[in-house]
């Protein structure tokens, strides 16, 4: 028998196209001319089933810049394992040439220069073109959306997700699972889900009162495609009420529930499923662990942690596919399923270079229609940035530093805290900062900026708690986001230590003095998960700060020292 690995087609879409010419030597036009839509879409159709995976779009309908992380630390058994490999190490691992389109799309380093050359990425009208092209090859390909779709932009906030529902419906997905969608509140989620022309899946979405599967969400759905009976099992984000405000959706309980996942796999196999696909929002490391615990899943389409991997990761007989975020990538997975078994696969992570892929006219018009009522207020220029503004990474990005600065000055605080979310596009040096850009990194249904006094001791408790939610060596105990972003205070963290021993040398930057456990400090922050949080909306705080600055100078801070990596 031929092993699955033999079927693997290494697919870094464009890495070989330009060679190692060094990125300084071409104009952007040349870069675009060298890269064609046909090359990006090139794929030798394989087997009898095709899956198309998009995830973590975060309501980004239009092309954008998105810098991949330079710091993404793995701990425990995942130390040094993908996706915890970044920058040049990532490129060496996958044989990606420096300065190549794949360098720009998949890794950090020289981001601003490469952005100038290759331009923006994403745009749901471009994604539509790619999906249509795959469907032209394979008309019954399944389109699966991993969630975090109805959150993250000005129009999404104002329409409570309606803009995304309208645009996604036009792409005709077959199924979807969920995370940030629930922060619209359970009533709105129910309203939108009931109107979906495709399956809303989540085997781990339970009724909180009765601790039994919630009626609104089905655990799985069967599809007949290429003569194969395919079961798609949904897995919503497991830590909804912990990482996000549970009071907004008190009817629901989540959790990983891997025993129940095993039951569902066994159930669909008993009903004749020849291929079992898990559409997951667990996050990569949790999915990797689950793939080893639950037997019988052929493909896990992972989401939540925004990783983009050019090759599947194999765990036993299961392949894990990581398709990035923000509409920057579409994964195509072709499978050969025979005699009730997955015999082989071919995979391609397709980067959506916005200047290379022709927008689908119909979807482009639909996007503009969603945006039209808000265009004037969204496009207002608030300031300019001289440096690169980005968020993604385990610790503060420059966007977070700017947001923390806004909290410190506008809220007259000593210390600022900003949540370690993974969403939020980047802005390149020289770009205008519009109101829309500010909403892209702040919009949420619980965005009020609190101001509070906290003892030094309690600030440490918070940092230790959040650090354990990302650096616990067991992925099942990692609750979600990256490290909370801190302004006005420096600290040292040893990621290899247990909870309670990771954080040290907390220092108030304004005075250079150590944080006194017994002393109270004025702390400003946003995105509290507690009901009744009061204060101005964070986007108003940030807008006010940027408009006062006019031009935001480049930000380069090193107030967090990381060890134990």
């Amino acid at each position, binding site marked *: 028998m031929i092993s699955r690995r033999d079927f693997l087609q290494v697919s870094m879409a464009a890495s070989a196209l330009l060679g190692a010419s060094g990125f300084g030597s071409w104009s952007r036009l040349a870069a675009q001319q060298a890269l064609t839509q046909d090359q990006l879409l090139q794929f030798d159709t394989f087997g009898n089933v095709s899956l198309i995976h998009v995830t973590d779009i975060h309501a980004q309908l239009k092309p954008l810049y998105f810098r991949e992380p330079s710091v993404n630390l793995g701990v425990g058994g995942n130390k040094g394992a993908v996706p915890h490999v970044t920058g040049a190490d990532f490129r060496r691992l996958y044989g990606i040439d420096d300065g190549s389109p794949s360098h720009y799309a998949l890794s950090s380093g020289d981001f601003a220069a490469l952005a100038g050359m290759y331009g923006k990425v994403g745009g749901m009208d471009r994604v539509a073109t790619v999906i249509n092209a795959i469907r032209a090859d394979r008309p019954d390909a399944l389109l699966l959306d991993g969630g975090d779709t109805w959150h993250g932009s000005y129009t999404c906030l104002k329409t409570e997700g309606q803009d995304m529902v309208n645009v996604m419906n036009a792409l005709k997905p077959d199924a979807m699972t969920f*995370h940030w969608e629930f922060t619209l509140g359970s009533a709105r989620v129910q309203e939108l889900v009931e109107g979906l022309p495709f399956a809303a899946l989540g085997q781990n979405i339970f009724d909180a009162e009765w*601790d039994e599967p919630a009626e609104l969400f089905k655990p799985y759905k069967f599809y007949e495609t290429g003569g194969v009976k395919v079961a798609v099992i949904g897995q919503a*984000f497991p*830590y*909804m*009420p*912990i*990482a*996000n405000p*549970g009071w907004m959706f008190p009817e629901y*309980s*989540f*959790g*990983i529930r891997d*025993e129940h996942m095993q039951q569902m796999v066994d159930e669909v196999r008993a009903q004749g499923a020849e291929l079992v696909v898990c559409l997951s929002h667990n*996050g990569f490391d949790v999915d990797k662990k689950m793939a080893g615990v639950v037997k019988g899943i052929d493909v896990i389409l992972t989401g*939540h*942690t*925004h990783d983009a991997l050019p090759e599947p990761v194999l765990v036993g007989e299961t392949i894990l596919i990581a398709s990035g975020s923000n509409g920057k990538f579409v994964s195509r997975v072709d499978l050969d399923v025979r005699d009730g078994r997955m015999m082989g696969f071919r995979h391609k992570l397709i980067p959506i270079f916005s200047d290379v892929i022709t927008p689908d006219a119909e979807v482009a018009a639909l996007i503009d229609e969603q945006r039209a009522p808000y265009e004037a207020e969204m496009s207002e220029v608030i300031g300019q940035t001289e440096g690169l503004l980005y968020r993604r990474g385990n610790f503060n990005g420059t966007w977070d530093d700017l947001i923390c600065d806004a909290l410190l000055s*506008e*809220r*007259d605080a000593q210390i600022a805290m900003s*949540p*370690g*979310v*993974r969403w939020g596009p980047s802005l390149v040096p020289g770009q205008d900062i519009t109101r829309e850009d500010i909403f892209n990194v702040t919009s949420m249904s619980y965005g009020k900026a*609190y*101001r*509070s*006094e*906290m003892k030094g001791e*309690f600030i440490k*408790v*918070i940092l*230790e*708690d*959040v650090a*354990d*939610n990302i650096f*616990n060596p*067991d992925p*099942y*105990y990692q*609750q*979600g*986001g*990256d490290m*909370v972003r801190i302004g006005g205070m420096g600290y040292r963290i040893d990621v290899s230590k247990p*909870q*309670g021993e990771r954080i040290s040398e907390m220092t108030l930057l304004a005075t250079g003095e150590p944080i006194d456990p017994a002393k109270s400090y004025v*702390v400003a*922050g946003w*995105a*509290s*998960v*507690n009901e*009744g*949080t*009061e*204060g101005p909306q964070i986007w108003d705080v940030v807008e006010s700060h940027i408009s006062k600055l006019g031009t935001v100078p480049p930000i380069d801070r090193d107030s967090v020292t990381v060890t134990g990596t």
Partner: protein
Amino acid sequence: MQMTRRDTLALGLGAAALTILPFRVNAAAEDKIAEFTGGAETSGTGLTLTAPEIAENGNTVPISVSAPGATAILVLATGNPTPGVATFTFGPLAGSQDASTRIRLAGTQDVVAIAKMADGSFAKASSTVKVTIGGCGG
């Protein structure tokens, strides 16, 4: 910038009492186990304890135990001030030896279950449940 009283309302993370270290095993838990088993050895098979990895609400954590053939199952929250949660006893006519309940956990700790089998042997299962402040969900 002028601050109103309402603006300064405390964030109230709702966890001011939460300590940063996992709760230590209460000595009373060891006593309870010794009392239940009479000091006998416990095996790792025959008992399934289901608990969430991270509690959605530390005040009401759903757990369930299942031990086919057991006559009694002891459940302990080893880090609580009073570790005893429940002892479920099953008569000879019991259709199954399963039980579910919700328990309150003072902080991150191990929940332990011990089943007494019909032949007098004991099985033990343990699960760490994390109680966290939350927030920051990527």
